[in-house]
């Protein structure tokens, strides 16, 4: 195999790669090796991966090739490589959640989502970088250093799932997995020109997903195009009895919807509150242009007001830290991970405190302290209680909007990728990156981001939001819009990215 064909393999879609492997045009091992080679050559600059599992990936690929040789039927994504956000447990493979406190931990079990990936013969290349415990919008909160945006290496790749989005944009993998608590799949997708979907809460099992905020976290598919994302969505979604919040209903027909490329008569609402001050003109222009295309495609576009969305950010920053303060209590040096001060001179309580002091980064500590305060006796009603009421109001705004329209659209994030370091010392500015994405997490809706254009040479994402369990609507709108935009442009947006 020549270098040029290797280069070709890493630029192909997941659908193409699966077809090539099935037809015998390439082996799964060749596909895996091509991606591993590219990671080895280029990831020194991007830092998308925290751990590359060369051996495991090649073994999984070899198993796919053996299955094919034996005449067994292969799944729709068999042999396709994938980059996995390092917040999912993988048996025997280091899992850090981007934190020092888990450095060196090898979980004894696979997450439910990982089991599904393996069952589908998807080849897991390794674990991707993220903000510590998925708290952040830039990957700068990773204890292992930031990831760089392949479009401009001086800029952030989004967060918390910046490693997964960068891996896609840098052609390290055609598929990736992210998790979305307040936008951690969609905002990285937007700033890297890739596709990222937050399924309906409960659509994808959280068993084995290291919790940030339990009532908000949702794993989801990331890809370079809408159909690839839909195929991955179908693999990872579905009821899991080990997650009590998992929905016991059929997975929406996302692949069919992604292939439909037709939105005639769909009613699309533009969220009035997500525009204006604080939004980059270039972002608004790209979004406006995409909405015009939706109209041209036959959709009925109207403006919709969701007044409570304005309170989503403050409510989120009470609910999330409250759950974080409790979820992260288990990192106590007793059973796994880092242990500091265990030299015989300190009590168990002191060892716990010293370990947590040394093992957690500043943003994690900030949120633990915020949450501990918000839940404390005497303050609970004023903070957590009020925030839950806002959550109800937001769900009502969504319900009212979906009485009028089939989906809602908005910018995914107010700006394009900002420079690394720009907001690192300004948490409030950093939090604004998730302004438009948080409402869907608070209400449990399905939402996605897809690339719709460039602003000053950097990608802009359009957010599409659908009702609970109507994930297919996202794919229908995005599939049609992506097709139309690629057609007009003559190529996929990502082809404008530097080749690295």
């Amino acid at each position, binding site marked *: 195999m020549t270098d040029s064909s290797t280069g070709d393999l890493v630029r192909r879609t997941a659908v193409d790669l699966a077809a090539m492997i099935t037809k015998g045009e390439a082996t799964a091992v060749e596909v895996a090796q091509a991606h591993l080679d590219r990671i080895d050559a280029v990831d020194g600059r991007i830092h998308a991966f925290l751990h590359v599992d060369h051996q495991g990936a090649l073994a999984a690929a070899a198993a796919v090739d053996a299955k094919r040789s034996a005449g067994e039927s292969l799944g729709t994504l068999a042999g396709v490589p994938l980059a996995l956000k390092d917040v*999912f447990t993988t048996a025997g493979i280091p899992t850090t959640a981007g934190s020092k406190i888990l450095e060196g931990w090898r979980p004894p079990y696979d997450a439910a989502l990982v089991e599904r990936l393996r069952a589908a013969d998807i080849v897991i290349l390794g674990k991707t970088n993220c903000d510590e415990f998925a708290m952040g919008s830039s990957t700068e909160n990773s204890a292992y250093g930031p990831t760089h945006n392949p479009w401009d290496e001086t800029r952030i790749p989004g967060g918390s799932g910046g490693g997964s989005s960068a891996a896609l944009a840098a052609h390290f993998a055609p598929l990736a997995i992210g998790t979305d608590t307040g936008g951690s799949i969609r905002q990285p997708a937007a700033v890297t020109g890739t596709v990222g979907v937050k399924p309906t809460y409960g659509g994808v099992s959280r068993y084995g997903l290291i*919790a940030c905020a339990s009532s908000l976290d949702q794993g989801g598919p990331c890809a370079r195009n809408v159909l690839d994302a839909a195929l991955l969505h179908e693999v990872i979604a579905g009821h899991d009895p080990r997650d009590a919040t998992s929905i016991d209903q059929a997975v929406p027909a996302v692949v069919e919807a992604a292939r439909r490329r037709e939105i005639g008569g769909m009613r699309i609402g533009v969220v009035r509150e997500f525009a204006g001050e604080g939004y980059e003109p270039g972002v608004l222009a790209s979004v406006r242009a995409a909405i015009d295309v939706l109209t041209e495609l036959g959709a009925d576009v109207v403006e919709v007001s969701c007044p409570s969305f304005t309170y989503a950010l403050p409510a989120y920053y009470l609910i999330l830290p409250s759950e974080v303060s409790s979820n992260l209590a288990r990192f106590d040096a007793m059973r796994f991970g880092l242990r500091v001060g265990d030299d015989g001179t300190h009590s168990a309580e002191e060892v716990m405190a010293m370990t947590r002091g040394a093992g957690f980064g500043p943003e994690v500590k900030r949120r633990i302290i915020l949450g501990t305060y918000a839940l404390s006796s005497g303050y609970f009603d004023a903070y957590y209680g009020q925030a839950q009421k806002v959550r109800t109001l937001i769900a009502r705004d969504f319900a009212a909007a979906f009485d009028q329209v089939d989906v809602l659209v908005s910018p995914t994030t107010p700006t394009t990728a900002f420079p690394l370091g720009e907001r690192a010392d300004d948490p409030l500015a950093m939090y604004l990156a998730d302004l438009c994405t948080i409402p869907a997490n608070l209400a449990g809706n399905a939402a996605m981001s897809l690339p719709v254009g460039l602003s000053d040479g950097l990608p802009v994402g359009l957010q599409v939001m659908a009702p609970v369990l109507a994930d297919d609507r996202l794919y229908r709108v995005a599939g049609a819009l992506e097709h139309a935009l690629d057609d007009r442009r003559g190529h996929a947006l990502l082809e404008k990215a530097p080749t690295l």
Partner: protein
Amino acid sequence: MSPSTPDLVPYDEALSRYAPVLGLEVHVELSTASKMFCGCPTGFGAEPNTQVCPVCLGLPGALPVMNAEAVDAVIRIGLALGCDIAPWCRFARKNYFYPDMPKNFQISQYDEPIAYGGSLDVMIDTDDGPQTFTVGIERAHMEEDTGKSLHVGGATGRIHGAQHSLVDYNRAGIPLIEIVTKPVPGLGKYVPELARAYVGELRDILRSLDVSDVRMEQGSLRCDVNVSIAPVGAAEWGKRTETKNVNSLRSVERAVRYEIGRQAAVLDAGGTVKQETRHWQEGSGTTAPGRSKEEAEDYRYFPEPDLVPIAPTPERVEELRGTLPELPRALRVRLLGEWQLSPLDMQALINAGAVDLVVATVAAGAPPADARKWWLGELARAANETGTELSALPVTPAQVAQVVELVADGALNDKLARQVLEGVLAGEGEPDEIVAARGLAVVSDEGALGKAVDAAIAGNPDVAGKIRDGKVAATGALVGAVMKATRGQADAARVRELLLERLGPPE
């Protein structure tokens, strides 16, 4: 510490000046096949840390899933205690750091208990005979048990002063039901007995529901005793202490009694009772303060986001009500008639914790009177000597019934039967095996017995003469001689018959 030390006011004296208020929190480990939130087994006594998984170890990423069997159990418990069942309620997280708490929060219920507002009638002996008191039940809720810490080094076996600690997580996540009484005021000197009777009655109910092993010594039923006292006639109740580690019915009673005396001494000395957690010390019969906390613990309860609300339908609740067995109180009323017992006889059975054992023994074929005789006699004595509950003795109702049957068949007499029960308690096997192994069978070989009888007549000619003369009362002496000669292994009634056959039946 004896009652005469100045730290303790003698009980009667304390009661003459102070009125106690009682509250009890009972924790019951359910005997479900699996833990509250994962599939791990719940058996007692397994090797440490062998009944664990990512969920009950609180590993990153693991999630709880509710055990439906445990929910059914708590609803049945609630119904048996006359509680209302919440149509919708949630679990909450109780946040605090402790090494034997894998997640450093306990999944419990806070302001939305699944069962609330019940009551339990308890009978105790009073100066006016047995009387029934109604104890209000505040709530019953579900939670998960913690692991068990073993503190090595240090004087107390508690974490303070220990050199290192070992943690066994087998117990972590076992379903636990907490049953909390309303405060019980106005009972005066009967408070310790009421506490004991309440826990005993509750235990009987739980046993009849078949939801728990209710073994206090194994910790499957644990009791926290809350006691406060205030001067007689005072408008307000005093500050209460919560005494933990109370591991038997007897200790419940003793702990309450001790706390009343101790608190009286504190108040007498002009002090104030500290609201605190104390630990019962079985050996000394005293309570000692727990590690003092500088400020009140704030558990930062909030609804558990990893679990969905519990919403039993009214139909389901009624279905579960239909599964309730005859509860102990109703059973006793029925037995009073069927067994022809006096209320005092019944109270004796209740006090000994023997009702269920006797019922089971009767069910296994023994006549009620015989069953009662053995459980309240020989076995109660054995329990007393070893300081355990009757139900904790290593003997089953079926074994007792077997012994009763052997006596009825004439294969054993009472003396031999006692030896057989001794053997059962010593773990020597089933009654028939012990009879064989110890050679305890009554001498029923008529030839051998006849020779012994003849020998007794020949050896005691004057006694034999009196019997021939019609003084039947003298037969006892010859029966004694035969029994001695057969080392007690003869059936005394049969020996008497043989003697009278030979010495002429009385006119």
